[in-house]
């Protein structure tokens, strides 16, 4: 009831929701923080977090409050951007050693990463709308992707699937579309900014739900 009332009063004149929490969820290294940085760079001229080729670089929830984006026809959308640690079912410090980390640093990173996953899952209760960010070069059928999407559906949280890294040759948009035919899917490259206009338009559509 409280959530319903909160939602009712969170729509502006055009029926577009304002001041909601937009969560970025997905497996590690899918580009969630790169996307968060792209959004912040485009609209606030600043970054949100650091990115790295080593998985689990983001190990704590990062928030940017009051991000305001504008549509082509002048509408505004305001939200708090929530970048979450990548969700994984396994975390092995030995995997970090392969990236040249010392054993001590790898163990520390693994410890922090497990806490990050727990935090990300807890935050599912806090977010109003979610972008599930997938790496379009990877197998979309991973159980983590399916579990996150299923969970959001069960909670009735509006969701868009973002197929990231479409600038790479190995990216297969059709494979992502075939895996999740029931969802809105937008292909982007957060790194190069390719298709970001479509992404922002999708956020406006999503905010109306």
């Amino acid at each position, binding site marked *: 009831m409280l959530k319903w009332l909160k939602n009712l009063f969170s729509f502006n004149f055009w029926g577009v929701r304002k001041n909601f929490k937009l969560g970025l969820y997905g497996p590690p290294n899918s580009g969630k923080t790169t996307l968060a940085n792209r959004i912040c760079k485009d609209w606030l001229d600043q970054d949100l977090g650091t990115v790295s080729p080593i998985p689990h670089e983001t190990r704590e929830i990062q928030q940017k409050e009051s991000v305001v984006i504008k549509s082509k026809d002048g509408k505004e959308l305001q939200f708090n951007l929530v970048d979450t640690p990548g969700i994984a079912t*396994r*975390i092995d410090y030995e995997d970090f050693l392969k990236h040249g980390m010392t054993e001590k640093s790898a163990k520390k990173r693994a410890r922090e990463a*497990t806490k990050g*996953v727990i935090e990300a899952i807890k935050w599912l209760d806090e977010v109003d709308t979610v972008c599930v960010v997938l790496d379009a070069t990877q197998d979309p059928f991973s*159980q*983590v992707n399916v*579990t996150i999407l299923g969970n959001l559906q069960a909670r009735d949280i509006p969701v868009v699937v973002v197929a990231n890294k479409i600038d790479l040759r190995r990216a297969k948009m059709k494979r992502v579309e075939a895996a999740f035919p029931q969802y809105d899917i937008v292909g982007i490259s957060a790194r190069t900014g390719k298709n970001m206009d479509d992404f922002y338009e999708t956020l406006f559509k999503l905010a109306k739900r």
Partner: protein
Amino acid sequence: MVTIQLLPYSEISSLSSIGRIRKILNIAKQNKIVLLQGRLQKEEETELIKATMEEINKEFRGIELAVINPMQGGGLFDGVASFVLGNRAGLTVVGPASVVKKIKKDPHKIELLTNEGKKRRK
């Protein structure tokens, strides 16, 4: 050697969500692959991941998880079958990360790649 433990849905049907998750996780922590007849609820799957993260230590590095739900076709028969069978439809595979390297999955097939012979650091 890989040990697979079959878990009929009847063995977890009377348990609470936490009980189901504990049962599956305890088997996986014994380095056995769990083949559950049926599937967990979506929220339980997420809780399983959360519980797994809480248990990770030097010996236990997590799990690989895959669910196959043959009733996902969306047709009338699938809908009726899903309604009748509920969570008993489908198959859930949970393997300890020390044994299962990767589970490749498409909607109707699971391939399980094991870590046989891999020496672990202590």
